[in-house]
């Protein structure tokens, strides 16, 4: 049975998705559970980020890169034919049109600028689908930094196109052969590597996970999605604010950035996870990769491997702020299956001429299901973030077609 966590009414919004409390806490979640050897490095990143984020010069430089290099703002596209079929008014926030083909570029340009400001000469990144790795390699090339990307061997096979793109951009791609050979293991390996090179390398975490300040910092760098969408909705919609805001959730960065723009509105926020990787929907509290959050675990407390057709969702946990939003009932988290996601990808291609990333197709799959079973009332407006484009998934989709 697909899992649905509850919303609570009335929707609490005061102060949610602001700065975390002391020690990087979102409610009871978050924190900085880093080995002692990384604590000082995390403190330095936090201090640098605080200072940069308050500096109009830094904000201006980032805004310029986002415009001139990454092609922002991305459009809000009404999905006309699909809306007609579904009986709801669906709008797509087109992160697939951002440079490198996904929202990952937003975060990476921010962190690469920060790394350069901190005097670091190299970026370290983990990647699942390869989109964060490609974005990191791109930002590194743009700013004259080196890049080392850790990627699970299994993901290197299923996302071979992105491995080639990273290498073409001059990045070193390090295969990770431990554990499930996917995103979780790539993240562990990147952290292990960082311990030895904190002096000259910045760990560019790819989602709203990791030790404080990463969940907060990455959400702030991604909030451009939500801020733009909010303004676009205000201009486009009669009601100004959509009834529903939907995004897929791996670690949760595109969803966090999207939700941040709507946290103080009456819009209902829904995060869509992969059925086999539902950290927010089905995880239990735990600590992994530096923060206290929700993780899939067995009865002994061992982390259980996730399974998803979408490499970028194939992570057994979720960022701590999502755990908190779930606890508050401000957002809810639902799951869809591999088949539903693949079906949604094909449907979007054929109705709107957009081939979405399999990750993003999860969000759409839920919209399709919820419009069908009446959970999305007929005629309601839905703003969905289309986090990336599907080129990288063509070989996976080919097997399914």
């Amino acid at each position, binding site marked *: 049975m697909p899992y649905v966590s509850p919303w609570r009414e009335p929707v609490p919004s005061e102060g949610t998705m602001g700065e975390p409390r002391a020690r990087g806490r979102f409610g009871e979640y978050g924190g900085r559970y880093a*080995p002692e050897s990384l604590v000082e490095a995390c403190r330095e990143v936090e201090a640098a980020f605080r200072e940069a984020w308050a500096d109009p010069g830094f904000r201006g430089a980032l805004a310029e890169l986002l415009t001139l290099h990454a092609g922002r703002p991305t459009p809000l596209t009404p999905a006309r034919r699909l809306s007609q079929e579904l009986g709801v008014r669906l709008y797509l926030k087109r992160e697939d049109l951002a440079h490198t083909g996904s929202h990952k570029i937003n975060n990476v340009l921010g962190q690469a600028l920060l790394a350069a400001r901190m005097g670091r000469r190299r970026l370290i990144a983990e990647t699942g689908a390869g989109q964060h790795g490609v974005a990191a390699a791109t930002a590194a090339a743009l700013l004259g930094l080196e890049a080392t990307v850790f990627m699970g061997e299994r993901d290197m096979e299923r996302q071979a196109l992105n491995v080639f793109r990273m290498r073409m951009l001059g990045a070193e791609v390090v295969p990770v052969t431990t554990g499930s050979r996917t995103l979780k293991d790539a993240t562990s390996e990147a952290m292990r590597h960082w311990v030895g090179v904190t002096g000259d390398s910045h760990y560019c975490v790819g989602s709203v996970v990791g030790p404080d300040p990463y969940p907060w910092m990455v959400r702030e760098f991604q909030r451009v999605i939500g801020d733009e969408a909010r303004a676009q909705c205000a201009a486009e919609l009669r009601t100004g604010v959509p009834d529903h805001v939907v995004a897929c959730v791996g670690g949760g960065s595109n969803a966090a950035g999207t939700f941040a723009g709507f946290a103080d509105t009456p819009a209902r926020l829904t995060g869509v996870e992969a059925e086999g990787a539902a950290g927010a929907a089905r995880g239990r509290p735990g*600590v992994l990769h530096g923060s206290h959050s929700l993780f899939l675990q067995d009865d002994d407390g061992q982390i259980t491997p996730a399974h998803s057709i979408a490499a970028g969702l194939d992570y057994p946990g979720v960022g701590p702020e999502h755990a908190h939003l779930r606890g508050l009932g401000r957002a809810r988290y639902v799951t869809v299956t591999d088949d539903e996601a693949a079906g949604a990808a094909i449907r979007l291609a054929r109705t709107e001429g957009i081939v979405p990333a399999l990750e993003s197709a999860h969000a759409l799959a839920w919209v399709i299901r919820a419009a069908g079973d009446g959970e999305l009332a007929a005629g309601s407006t839905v703003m969905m973030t289309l986090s990336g484009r599907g080129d990288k998934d063509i070989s996976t989709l080919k097997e399914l077609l």
Partner: protein
Amino acid sequence: MTNPTLAAGPVERHLRARRDTGRGLLMPYVTGGITPGWTDYLRAFVAAGADAIEVGLPFSDPTLDGVTIQQAGDTALARGASTRRILADLAGIPEPGVPLVASTYYNLVLHDGSEAFCAALRRAGVSGLIVPDLPLHEADELAEAAAAAGIELALLASPSTPEPRLAEISRRSRGFVYAVSLMGTTGERAALAASAAELTARIRRGTDRPVLLGFGISTPDQAREAGRHADGVVVGAAVMRRVLDGAGPDDLRAFLATLRRALDQECDAPR
């Protein structure tokens, strides 16, 4: 100033007493559940002259361990090892004569809850605890639960730890201070890192609690050199590589005896 030995628990008292005889301390590590008869390694360690033994409770995602201890953990987990089973094994052996110190990642502590976890350690005869992904500023809850259960929670200090924090770690650590010799993960290294001597000296300025150097110490020469700076050494990957290669308790006893001799020679040498 209060006399720290008065507040010290059994692990610290034991290590202090041995150190004060001029002995370099040796704490070998074994991954719990690595082989069917894994507790035999404990006996061999004691016979070789171990002063305390670190028992790893394997975790699926050991983010501070290098390949050897990762492999050891995976092997143990594949054999069905779990916190519960390892502690049951320990409860079933005769009192080893030296303190047992559990080490694991924080998720396994949280999973049981700090209080229940510490109580279970205690029942199994474990008296110390190391949690490498639980830094000082997150350790309050576990430190309290450990103290209540009579478990000494040793904190780690790193070459990158800045000054006021280092003093706080030394002050709040129980049993001993675990000095991480280098900026890296566990695993054998060709030489003792230069950062080891400096870190140990910095810790010593703030405390006379025993200081054990760990990470990368794998040969008698390295143990001898480490013994010149610290009160003793922790030897993990060098032990577990041998275990993974099929070495039995007797082989490990012979290997650890070479480290024991090196530490003893260092202590006999004029300072």
